[in-house]
């Protein structure tokens, strides 16, 4: 790792950039344009976000709130819980002295905003002992923690065993390397059924006991009720946005896709996310009413469903590109959430969660159910053709959202998806959905450059007659 990379902590750098970014629109447009010139490495993504108006500003402010908590966690006398995005945030926000920091979210911020992305942190992980095919979404931030370039976590929580071996190994490695206590939620290979539900709820209670022990505080019932009520309200808004994205043209701006899942993964149950979602809904409703696409031009040339994850490398060029091509970006499949009212869960209610705030026990059961239906947890657990998994979700989304094509963008860093992506492609094509498999890494340009990805996606769109 270069000396200059060691100069500042990762969490401090992200906090500094996002907090500054969240303020740039507070001045005049002239000042804004002048400020953009000062941030050459990430002005594209900042501009793409802030050009959305109020939702963009709220997204930045939500990010600033999140990163401020992480950067100043010990200064504020709180405990830092580090983990993977497949564990729901709601529980942690119900403790008044716990700050959750999820590896993938920090990696996404750093990938989009740092000049060379997170390459040096990724490589540091390999120097320390990770394999080179370990998940890059993890390595991108974990490297900084292993190198002591971030606030040291007080405890670790991982929701990956049974879902993702690389996630589970990364957290176990970090626990051993930094000597930090770790709790791992485990997942059976199926999603539904009494036995499964009971197992997951019992496991979740063990997690709560672990957090209480290491946070030195008790889970507060009133606070939990308030978080879950906020979560329920957020679900209602998300459900309406998802319904509106079915329209042709799709009224949701492409970057809102990021706002939706980043918001849910980072600030679920917090008021800042509710404010963002309400603002997004207003924009989507207005576009829908005007029959306008959410793209900058207001036109829709094609509808794209990313059937795994999006692409984040330097300056978030993915969103700028789809928008410039008048491509509507439908909700990314792996980041879907399964509340009872969401449209793609129709006739699959047994695969959904419901929030019950009547008693403490009911709330904990709800938390366990939410957690066991998190993105990736739901789609990639168990074997490929198990009920309720990736393929079924892809078909349901395709029927509902009517994408023109799908793209899988990934590498063997995600073995669970990479190992079956050819089956997904085969079945999607049989289903009538043109599907491109792209060997690339959403977080690491060194695997395949963004230019390579654009070339391949454009070629696919032309060859398959999606655009002329």
């Amino acid at each position: 790792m270069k000396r200059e990379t060691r100069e500042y902590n990762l969490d401090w750098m992200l906090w500094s950039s996002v907090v500054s970014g969240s303020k740039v629109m507070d001045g005049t447009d002239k000042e804004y344009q002048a400020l953009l010139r000062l941030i050459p490495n990430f002005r594209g993504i900042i501009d793409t976000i802030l050009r959305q108006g109020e939702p963009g500003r709220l997204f930045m402010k939500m990010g600033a709130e999140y990163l401020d908590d992480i950067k100043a966690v010990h200064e504020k006398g709180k405990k830092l819980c580090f983990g993977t995005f497949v564990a729901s945030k709601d529980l942690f926000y119900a403790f008044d002295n716990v700050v959750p920091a999820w590896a993938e979210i920090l990696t996404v911020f750093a990938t989009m905003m740092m000049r060379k992305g997170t390459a040096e942190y990724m490589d540091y992980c390999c120097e320390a002992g990770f394999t080179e095919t370990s998940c890059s979404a993890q390595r991108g931030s974990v490297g900084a923690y292993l190198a002591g370039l971030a606030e040291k976590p007080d405890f670790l929580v991982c929701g990956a065993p049974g879902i993702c071996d690389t996630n589970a190994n990364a957290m176990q490695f970090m626990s051993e390397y930094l000597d930090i206590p770790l709790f791992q939620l485990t997942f059976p290979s199926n999603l539904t059924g009494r036995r499964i539900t009971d197992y997951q709820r019992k496991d979740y209670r063990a997690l709560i006991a672990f957090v209480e022990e290491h946070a030195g505080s008790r889970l507060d019932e009133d606070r939990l009720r308030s978080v879950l009520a906020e979560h329920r309200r957020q679900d209602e808004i998300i459900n309406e946005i998802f319904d509106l994205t079915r329209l042709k043209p799709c009224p949701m701006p492409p970057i809102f896709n990021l706002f939706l899942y980043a918001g849910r993964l980072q600030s679920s149950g917090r008021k800042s996310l509710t404010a963002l979602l309400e603002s997004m809904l207003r924009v989507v409703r207005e576009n829908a009413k005007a029959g306008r696409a959410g793209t900058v031009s207001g036109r829709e040339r094609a509808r794209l469903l990313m059937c795994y994850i999006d692409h984040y490398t330097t300056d978030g060029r993915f969103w700028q590109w789809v928008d410039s091509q008048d491509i509507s970006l439908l909700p990314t499949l792996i980041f879907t959430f399964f509340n009872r009212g969401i449209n793609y869960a129709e006739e699959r209610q047994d695969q959904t969660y419901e929030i019950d705030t009547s008693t403490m026990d009911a709330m904990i059961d709800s938390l366990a159910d939410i957690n066991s239906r998190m993105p990736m947890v739901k789609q990639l657990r168990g074997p490929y053709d198990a009920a309720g998994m990736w393929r079924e979700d892809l078909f349901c989304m395709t029927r509902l959202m009517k994408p023109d094509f799908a793209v899988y963008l990934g590498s063997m860093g995600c073995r669970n998806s990479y190992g079956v992506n050819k089956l997904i492609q085969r079945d999607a094509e049989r289903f009538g959905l043109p599907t491109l498999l792209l060997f690339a890494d959403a977080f690491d340009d060194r695997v395949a450059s963004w230019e390579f990805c654009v070339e391949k996606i454009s070629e696919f769109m032309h060859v398959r007659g999606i655009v002329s």
Partner: protein
Amino acid sequence: MIAAGCDVGSLTTKAVILNNARLLGHALVRSSFNPEKSASEVMEKALASARLTMDDISLCVGTGYGRERIGFVKKTVSEISCHAKGAHFLQPSIRTIIDIGGQDCKAIRLDAKGEIVKFITNDKCASGTGRFLEVMAKLLGLELGELGRISGQATHPITLASTCTVWAQAEVIMHLNEGMPKADLAAGINEAMAARVAILARSVGIEQDVCMTGGVAKNPGVVEAMEKQLGVPMRRLRLDPQLMGALGAAVFARERLGVS
């Protein structure tokens, strides 16, 4: 009306000129660092071979890596579409195309109308591309063309364990040091190449007739090894397979001019 196609590839640049369905001229040059210059150079040669000038060309379509940099083309089309178009134009019975270029390889499956049903391109590394053969030929002190010719003399072809081009080089050096005949080494190299590309080809589903396009299709050792790997004969096309992308581009230009 006279149509042209220009294919600026990573290693070579090609041009084809058509008058209706008749081939008037073609040329191939080594690509330089300047795609525009390579395109102009090859087009001049193709025009000279057809005894034409640029003013005689009604429309030129560009393809290949450098297609966006060609000043004289009016339209660009992807290489996959061009190889499919060119092969179908020459031989309508073709259903599967294996194209091995300088820096990539592709497998393309067509329907009876010549429409692309499925395609796949290589990823991760360069071991199934023309560059792999170039590196190996240099290592053996052979011209690229000789690599194919001498492999027919092999009695005990080597087996290359490594997929990686650099590690495969190390293996070949080891065999060279052991005094292994070059023919056996060449045959092993061709077979390794075919084995690698066959995985890609099988993944689109092999349907006959099958042909190979691109520069590597001129290597009889690889073509024969591919036939063995896939268990199907390779249909030989009646034009230099390396020109297929440029031919397809010219056919696209011809169609755009309204010539069916």
